[in-house]
């Protein structure tokens, strides 16, 4: 089967600082992949490269057979770390915005998720709390029928109760052919949903494995292995 995302010898430097080096990864379709590593290990850099927000210093990224560009942006659904919502739209306006620009946006499903979270469609984005903004953004991202979801710290800023909701939203809403990449350092919360894990350390891949192999082969939870590998 062809990989949805493939990168070879990927390298990104900012000035003299190496953010990523020699990264070779290949993600299959229909998997939930955890991109795990401490702060500053290159997780966000990797995701930004996949979104074409920055360009690689060396190496290549291929998403669904193409380099990052307009065509890949149409099939990649990206949740950035920070909120990108503007301050002049209502929730309904940003839904229409997504409906206008993304052919795969399912506005009915977005409305459904919104009402199940008890957020009003007429509410102004400006007046939403930080947590609610993150929920709206997650709805926007998950209501797309994308082929690849790139979620950068989707549970970083919300309380544990909301974390469970977000994870179940992710599991419920992605279709079986799609791949979900979740970057985080909160592993115990997310471990149960993952199929594969990638450990990033100082911009290099130190481990690439399925969760089953870690559990069965090493007899450890991913969280325990993470603590071992990244021991300070």
């Amino acid at each position, binding site marked *: 089967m062809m990989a949805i995302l493939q990168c070879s010898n990927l390298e990104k430097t900012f000035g003299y600082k190496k953010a990523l080096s020699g990264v070779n990864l290949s993600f299959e379709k229909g998997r939930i992949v955890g991109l795990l590593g401490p702060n500053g290990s290159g997780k966000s850099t990797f995701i930004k490269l996949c*979104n*074409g*927000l920055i360009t690689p210093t060396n190496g290549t990224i291929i998403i669904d057979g193409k380099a990052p560009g*307009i065509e890949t942006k149409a099939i990649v659904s990206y949740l950035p770390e920070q*909120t990108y919502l503007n301050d*002049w739209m209502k929730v309904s306006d940003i839904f229409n915005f997504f409906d206008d620009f993304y052919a795969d946006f399912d506005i009915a499903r977005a409305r459904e998720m919104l009402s199940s979270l008890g957020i009003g469609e007429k509410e102004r984005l400006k007046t939403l709390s930080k947590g609610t903004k993150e929920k709206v953004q997650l709805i926007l991202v998950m209501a797309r029928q994308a082929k690849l979801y790139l979620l950068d710290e989707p549970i970083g800023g919300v309380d544990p109760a909301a974390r469970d909701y977000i994870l179940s939203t992710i599991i419920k809403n992605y279709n079986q052919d799609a791949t979900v990449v979740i970057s985080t350092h909160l592993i115990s919360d997310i471990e149960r949903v993952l199929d594969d894990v990638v450990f990033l350390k100082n911009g290099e891949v130190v481990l690439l494995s399925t969760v089953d192999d870690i559990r069965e082969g090493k007899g450890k939870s991913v969280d325990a292995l993470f603590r071992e590998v990244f021991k300070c």
Partner: protein
Amino acid sequence: MLGKLLKYEFKATGRVFLPMFGALLIISVINRLFSNLNFKIPSIIGKIISIILIVGIFALTLIITIQRFSKNLLGSEGYLMFTLPVRSDSLIWSKLITATVWNIVSMIVVLTAITIMALSDISIKFIFKSISEVLRFLNIRGGDIPLLGLETVIAIVLSLFAFILMLYACLALSMLVNKRRGLCAFAVFVIINVISQIITSLAATTGVLRGLYEYVAGLPIPRMFHAIFVIVFIIELIECVIFYVLTRFMLTRKLNLE
């Protein structure tokens, strides 16, 4: 996709501009009534308010031109805008076209407001009379008035394009630093203007332009105007291309969102 981007760009900016324009036009009509009825004090207050509004509109136009680029593209909103399935060119053009339209509409609204308020004044009558005199003079000399009008419009649009693209280039170049980007953009703005001053004065003193100047000055009146317009077009176009290419390069190759 450019059409969709333009739709949202006009929505985002129109909600700020339209109330300001409406307020200025209403105040102008009220002022006109006050001065017709010879209400001294209210008329002075009304004039002060309209002057504040006029200055406000020009300031607002500049601020929004800058802000729609820096905040929507280079700030956190950029994470959404640059992951839309649209070309960077479409993003730049949507901002440029919208900003140019609002700059022109602002000028028209302010001129209309002044005309409404000062219609009875001798000065405004004198201005209208002078304009018609100039047109009559050009007509007698065989000037093509519609063509000259068109050239004027093109010159205005091109110079607005060049100015706005210069602002965009300054803002985009500020992505090269990680702190104090506003200050950096302003510094780049100053540097660009100093460089263009140097180029202009070098061209004037080294005689590169003297031949051209003498040629143009020797032309009969209507043709001289056309020649001046063509020179203006070429200069503005060169500026547009330089600043566009610079902005595009920064947005596609050196994007560094906050």
